[in-house]
Structures are given as structure tokens and as C-alpha cells.
């Protein structure tokens, strides 16, 4: 049986969640492995939420934000991007590769990009297998 990864996706309300809606309204196909949580801003995603997702059984985490200069709150996406870069280095020290915690940008109009990012993330995590640390 193929391994079906569990992925938690934090999507910003203003861009990426609307992008997901757009993908849905356009009837685009993408794998069902990402459990979406709508947040008001990617800047609200406390790194604790990422770690708690892993602890709760997620094999991967995806954080989607507005493109640079498009943040509804002006700078939340820059904060989120910065936190993710630092978090990735920390995860590496614990033996978690960066493919398990992807940060990317999806705008409200980018339905196609949304389904592409979801597809790539699911395949990358599937290839890594279940999250188990030595």
C-alpha cells in the first residue's frame, strides 16, 4: 500500500485560502493529504503550531502566505518567512529535512499554483516516508 502522508496546511485568509477556493471553483485536481487550517495571516503561525502538528502526527507542514508586498497586514508574510527559515535550521538539527516544513506564496488568483504546490509538497513528503526520529 502506498504511504499516504498527513500534512497540516496553514493558509492565510486573504491570499492562499482564496487561492485554494479558486482551485476548488475551477475543479482542479490535487491530492487530498493536506488538512487545511485557515489563519488570518501567515504571520500568526507560531512555530509552536508547526511543532505541535508534528507531535500530533503530521508528516509534513505547509505554510502558505501572500506574495511579498501583498500582505493584508503589510508585513506578516515577511515575519512568517523569517520564522520559517530559522525553524528549518532547527528542524535539521533534530533530523527533520526541510521538505517536511514548506513555506511558499500563493495569491488569491493562483488556483493553479495552489494545486501545484500541494502536489509537490505531498509527493516530497511521501518520498520521505512517515516522520520518525531516531
Amino acid at each position, binding site marked *: 500500500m502506498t504511504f499516504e502522508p498527513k500534512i497540516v496546511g496553514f493558509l492565510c485568509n486573504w491570499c492562499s485560502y482564496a487561492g485554494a477556493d479558486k482551485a476548488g471553483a475551477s475543479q482542479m485536481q490535487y491530492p487530498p493529504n493536506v488538512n487545511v487550517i485557515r489563519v488570518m495571516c501567515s*504571520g500568526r503561525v*507560531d*512555530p*509552536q503550531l*508547526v*511543532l*505541535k502538528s*508534528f*507531535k500530533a*502526527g503530521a508528516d509534513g507542514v505547509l505554510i502558505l502566505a501572500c*506574495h*511579498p*508586498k501583498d500582505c493584508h497586514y503589510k*508585513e506578516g508574510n*515577511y*515575519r*512568517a*518567512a*523569517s*520564522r520559517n*527559515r*530559522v*525553524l528549518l*535550521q*532547527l*528542524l535539521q*538539527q*533534530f533530523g*527533520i529535512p526541510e521538505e517536511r516544513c514548506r513555506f511558499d*506564496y500563493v495569491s488569491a488568483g493562483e488556483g493553479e499554483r495552489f494545486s501545484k504546490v500541494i502536489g509537490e509538497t505531498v509527493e516530497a513528503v511521501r518520498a520521505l516516508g*512517515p*516522520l*520518525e*526520529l*531516531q
Partner: protein
Amino acid sequence: MGAKPKLSMYWAASCGGCEIALVNLNEKILAVDAAFDFMFCPCLLDTKKKDIEALPDGDIAITLFNGSLRTEENREMAHLMRKKSKILIAFGSCSSAGCVTALGNLSPKGENFKTIYLDSPSVDNPKGIIPTPHTTVPEGVLELPAYLDRVKSLAQEVDVDYFIPGCPPEPHQIWSVIQAVTSGKPLPPKGSVLGGGTSSVCEECSRTRGDKKIKELRRTFDFKPEPDLCLLEQGLICMGIATRNGCGALCPKVNMPCTGCYGPPEGVEDQGAKMIGALGSIVDVEGLKELKEEEINTKVDEWIRSIPDLAGTFYKYTLAESLLNQLKGRKK
């Protein structure tokens, strides 16, 4: 004399600093002696393990247990002290959350031994001997306590009543706990952190704080910090923002950044994650706004490069209790 409640203090994988902190009560140690029969403390007294084993269960009123659980012996003593004590207190950051010893959890057991017994420049071990629990010699078999796969906090092995944070706990906080216990008033709910505040070290720090826009992260040996300005604002990783108060902000007072020994503030589960959250909030975003998506990553990577060991910086005292450490060894 026998009517006094018994007080004991045990060290597992610890450095002895917690015992010094207790003795640093100075003349108040006499008050401790007046209130308790201080009957077990391998660092200071000659009572033996067999004396403790001979006691009825729950005979010791309070045990202050310091040190993390690194070996089988530490684990055995944790169970013994739990059984013989009415109130078991995890004393100090090792037993509360693993402290420095738990950083060993970042490497597998074999790798730790290789570094300690073979690769360290100061080691002289031509036969490459690595300790094992049982060694046969002509006279018989020698035994050493087994080395556990991972360092545990006390509460990860036995039921703990209270936690006193700090590396080591500050004497005035130890005193406040002793007063609370001897006053006869009802104790806080089980599992509470005693001898600490609920907010962050920043609350006790007298330095001036403003809007933080950190362009560059620096280390203590790079420069001499301004004495009155927030250390984080000067680019030093001061963990105070993600650390429980109660120490009186002693380190920032002498121009040294907080390293986080009181653990996370009330309500925070993971000190390192909170610190990363804080770093995202204080980075100079103006410098990121004109950059392309990939350039943002490069810029932040450069920004963080001056901190060579993130796990060691953010979890110096709490790695055993960190969310990621709890994932180790879990099978799906």
C-alpha cells in the same frame, strides 16, 4: 528531633550547583534545619541508599530532586525517591526539563560515546575502551549503571508534584518555597511551577525597550553592549523574552544576555519555538521588503548565520521537554 518532617535532596545527572544554591541560603539554612530533619543528600551528608530503602514508603516529607536522568542508576533513584517521598519536587532545570545534559539527545547514543571516549582531543584511550554495564576482570564482573538511550526529565519517568526552575534556582526563590511549605497554608495545585513568576524575564529587566528592528545578530564577544538598552535590540540573542521570570533578570543586569534557565513562561510549551517566533517579530522587515522571494530566504539565512547552534541556544535548558524531543523514538 524525630518529630520533624524529613527533607531530602538527591542529585542524579547534575553538576552540584543545585546543592550550592541550597547552601547559598546562608544563615537561613539554620531555619531549614529547625523546620526539617535534613536527612539525605549525597553531596553533603553520609546517609546511604540502603538507609532510604529501609524507610517506610512516603516517610520523607519533601525530596528536592536535582539532575536529569542519564543512567539506569538515575532512573532507579528517581523511582526510589518517589516511593519514599510525600512531595517530590523537580529541583532545577536538569530535573525539570533536561538542561545541558539533554543536549546529548541531539546525537545517537553511540555517537556520544565516540566523542566522549575516543575523539575528544584530551582523551588518551589507545585501546579504544568504551564503558559497558558489565566488564569481566580476573577478580569477577564489574558493573556500571547502563547509559540510557535518551536523557529524561524527572517527570518523564515518575510522578512529580512540583517544579522549581533555574540553573540553579535562586536562593530567595528556594526560601520562598520553603516558607510556603512550612507556613501550613494550602499548597498550589499539583504540577505547578514554584519559585518563579508566570511572565517573562523582560518584566524584571530594567533595560529600556523600544521598537525592535534587528538588522544584525551579534554574539557577546563581538562588542560591548550599551548598559541601559535592551540586549535583544542590540542584536544579542537574549532568551529573556521566551523565559520565565523569577530570577530578577540577573544576567541582563551584568550585560550578559539571558540564556533561558528558568524555562518557558506559563502557558508556553516549547521555549525554542517561542524564541523563533520572537525572532520573526524583531527582524528588520524593512530590509526584506524590496527583495524577491528567494532573496528573502538568503537574507534571513545570513542573518541567522552568526548563531552556530540553534538547538543549543534555544533549548539549552529545556531540550528534554521540547516538542521535537518528545517525537524521538516514536514509531508510526
